[in-house]
């Protein structure tokens, strides 16, 4: 039975700069009990689409049809729509940390949902809330129901969100990136919970994500969106294994999940602006298989035997067409072997502590004795969940934070107790690149002067010489030197990360510490940056510490990996060895979480929460 049928949907959002064309001629069907996946890069219109279905886009200009249980939601009066929301169609938002009201107990929030749609007493509603919390794997639900959201962890809050969404047994549940804000191991638990719930309750789920691999492994059908267009639609398995559209293929190949080593085949360029009405193929400027006609006319819809449909001028599936393959950059020559250790960290501990106002001492052990060695020209990857101390370790190595005990030596020289002058010298050799390309760049300064900052601070190169150096750096990291005078806001996320890297390179460092350099970026852009990072290492002989929560990314770039948990190193090893023969249970858990096939089989995943729940 078809629960939802979207027909030729167009969504225009009025904005200060004109209309944003957020959806263009999008059609799809969702069957009962199905898990329907929507994937696409940031800004491709996934969230706008799901909000349109919920009727939560006031001011949008929408044409087409959204048929839900036979009725066109676009024609329903607001009161009718309100009656459906939360009752027949429910939604889970991306960020469970901000999706629950901080001032009401979770019980109050769930009973509110129940009593909005059903005439039951407060006590009955509370009982139902307790039941549903138990089902989604909250222990002691009859006690926890009176707790406030801040008393739950992120993963638990997402379980609460799910409980609230399914308590009225909706026919359709829209989950907009339900796991992106969570740690990898928790992500896998949430996905399997959703999967289990749809089977038990017969709820159809639309799952929005930018993680195509994840989707294809669990989704019955998957839709790939790009710039508001439905590029490809088909059975999940087919879309993953034999993508029909060049964009899908590009996305799949640029994610570092594969066994691939070396350079990633990235998709060049940036997604187009949605302010301009597209008359041809939206992907044409970035497509390796683009033909003349692609730039002139809207592509036709191609139907393939396995049920996939693709919006493309190619007559055959992209996966069968050599031309559609993104060019694979040549394999890098192996970096010269060396036993020269550039960074040596021995038994570093960090304890935040002291006394509270009333004399009770509070100690927080952030690092509990970490040791590592980084050989010259190599990359050491550090993985672990948020809060495990990765970034603190990075700051200690960079000399920004003194450890409580232990020692750090950079190229044979201890960084502790340095004279001011030596410290400054040392800081030149160790540079950091941060996650947030937005936050770390001053929005009111021009890019040229941001990149030139290190020269200014360290008082090297002036005037024209400095300007030339900056231009040179911009070229090295793949930025157009013509953009010297632009502001950071005029660059995309990937370009801003290039700016950050250029700034880090300015003083010829020998070591760069990357702290989650690509986690804010989309897959296709992420691949570009990873390639850049690898190329710079080859060309400049740099040594890297690469910190990430994403095991796939770390694996791709690192020769050796360190797994951290709660301030300790639980496992370390040469990348492939660690990958194929993980020793520590936590490493296995991380691996399982990062591998969608592992997830699909549901095997090996320690999920203490849902296994403890009474079904």
């Amino acid at each position, binding site marked *: 039975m078809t629960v939802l049928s979207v027909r030729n949907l167009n969504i225009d959002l009025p904005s200060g700069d004109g209309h944003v064309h957020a959806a263009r001629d999008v059609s799809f069907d969702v069957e009962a009990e199905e898990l329907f996946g929507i994937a696409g890069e940031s800004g491709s219109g996934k969230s706008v689409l799901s909000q349109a279905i919920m009727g939560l886009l006031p001011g949008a200009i929408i044409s087409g049809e959204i048929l839900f249980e036979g009725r066109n939601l676009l024609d329903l009066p607001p009161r009718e729509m309100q009656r459906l929301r939360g009752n027949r169609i429910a939604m889970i*938002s991306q*960020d469970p940390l901000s999706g629950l009201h901080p001032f009401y107990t979770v019980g109050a929030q769930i009973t509110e949902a129940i009593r*909005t749609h059903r005439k039951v007493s407060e006590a009955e509603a509370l009982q139902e809330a307790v039941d549903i919390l138990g089902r989604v794997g909250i222990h002691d639900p009859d006690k926890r129901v009176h707790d406030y959201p801040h008393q739950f962890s992120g993963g638990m809050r997402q379980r609460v969100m799910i409980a609230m969404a399914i308590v009225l047994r909706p026919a359709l549940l829209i989950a907009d990136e339900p796991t992106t804000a969570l740690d990898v191991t928790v992500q896998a638990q949430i996905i399997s919970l959703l999967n289990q719930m749809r089977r038990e309750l017969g709820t159809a789920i639309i799952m929005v994500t930018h993680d195509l691999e994840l989707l294809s492994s669990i989704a019955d059908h998957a839709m790939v969106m790009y710039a508001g267009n439905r590029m490809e639609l088909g059975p999940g398995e087919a879309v993953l294994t034999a993508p029909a559209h060049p964009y899908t293929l590009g996305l799949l190949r640029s994610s570092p999940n594969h066994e691939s080593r070396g350079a990633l085949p990235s998709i060049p360029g940036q997604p187009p602006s949605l302010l301009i009405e597209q008359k041809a193929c939206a992907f044409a400027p970035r497509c390796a298989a683009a033909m003349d006609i692609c730039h002139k006319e809207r592509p036709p819809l191609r139907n393939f035997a396995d049920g996939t449909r693709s919006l493309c001028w190619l007559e055959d599936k992209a996966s069968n067409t050599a031309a559609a393959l993104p060019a694979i950059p040549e394999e890098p020559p192996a970096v010269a072997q060396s036993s020269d250790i550039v960074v040596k960290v021995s038994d570093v501990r960090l304890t935040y502590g002291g006394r509270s106002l009333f004399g009770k001492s509070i100690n927080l052990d952030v690092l509990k004795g970490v040791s590592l060695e980084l050989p010259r020209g190599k990359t050491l990857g550090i993985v672990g969940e948020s809060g495990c101390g990765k970034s603190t370790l990075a700051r200690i190595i960079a000399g920004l934070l003194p450890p409580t005990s232990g020692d750090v030596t950079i190229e044979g020289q201890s960084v502790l107790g340095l004279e001011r002058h030596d410290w400054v010298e040392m800081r030149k050799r160790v540079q950091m690149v941060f996650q947030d390309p937005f936050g770390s760049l001053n929005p009111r300064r021009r890019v040229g002067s941001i990149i030139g900052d290190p020269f200014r601070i360290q008082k090297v190169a002036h005037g024209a010489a400095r300007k030339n150096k900056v231009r040179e750096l911009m070229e090295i990291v793949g930025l157009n030197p013509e953009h010297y005078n632009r502001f950071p806001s005029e660059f995309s996320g990937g370009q801003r990360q290039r700016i950050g890297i250029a700034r880090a390179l300015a003083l010829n460092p020998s070591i760069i510490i990357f702290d989650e350099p690509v986690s804010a970026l989309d897959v296709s852009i992420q691949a570009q940056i990873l390639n850049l990072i690898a190329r710079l290492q080859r060309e400049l002989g740099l040594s890297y510490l690469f910190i990430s929560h994403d095991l796939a990314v770390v694996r791709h770039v690192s020769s050796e990996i360190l797994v951290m948990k709660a301030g300790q190193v639980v496992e370390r090893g040469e990348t492939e060895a660690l990958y194929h023969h993980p020793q520590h249970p936590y490493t296995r858990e991380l691996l399982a979480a990062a591998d969608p096939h592992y997830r699909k089989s549901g095997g090996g995943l320690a999920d203490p929460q849902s296994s403890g729940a009474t079904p």
Partner: protein
Amino acid sequence: MIRFIASRIGFAALVLVMLSGFVFTLFFVAPGDPARIVAGERATEAQVAQVRENLGLDRPIIEQYFSFVGRSLSGDLGYSYRNQQPVLELIKNRMPATISLCVGAVVLWLLMGIPIGIMSARRPGSLVDRLGQGFVLIGVSFPSFVLGMAALYFLYFVPRQAGFTLFPPGGFRPFLPNPGLWAWHLMLPWFTLALTSAAIYARLTRGQLLEVLGEDYIRTARAKGLSERKVVYKHGVRSIFSPLTTQLGADIAALLGGALVTEQVFGLQGIGSLAVQSVQTQDRPVIIGVVMLAGFFIVIANLIVDFLYILLDPRIRT
């Protein structure tokens, strides 16, 4: 939590002690000899010395301070130099007018500012919003005494010329036996004192609520199928109480200053005018009494705000 409360109370006590020390020191470093003022212009040196001894002004400052603290703890704030009335008595007589003025003004500005802010935030850019913004602009552009003068002119003087009394020009009537008369007499002072703050609170409410309405949990509330009213009031407005309470705590000190001006404009015999008179006449025990009392109220009000804050935000409470 209990520790938090205890620390707040301790802090409040500390503030009061410091305040008392501060005014007492001022008392001594200020020019002019209080004994001479009390004794009168034509008193002889011997008479002045006698007065000084009577008032205990010849003793060391520390001793005087501690005897002052000791007496004030037992409720004795000394006697006015002017007319030998007990300071506490003087203040007690003036209290009803000031409390009526302040409490009424706070209630009025909250009742005006918050709803205007909410209506603005519900439909940003609409006619209602633009009217609200206009109100804010007017409210924050004029000092309260100008507003007071204008109110007096248009709501008292002009109707008076036309031969009827819309509002009285001032004066204080006790709450009992006739609350209506009390309110009628206070209407102009209330508006004068409240308008600027009402505008500030309207602006604050609008800004905070607009921000809150963009939060994810508001989307969650809408996704539950709640009516727009419930979304705005139960989920949106609930969240802005904390910042409003914080602001209120900060505004209480400024409120007393505003009350002083308003009492002058409308001839209300309140603490404010008492303070002005006693400064003019260098009546130091009264000045000290008034300052301590004001400090006491500000500290108490802030304590209440702190507790409210805890009550309102479970993240601090639990």
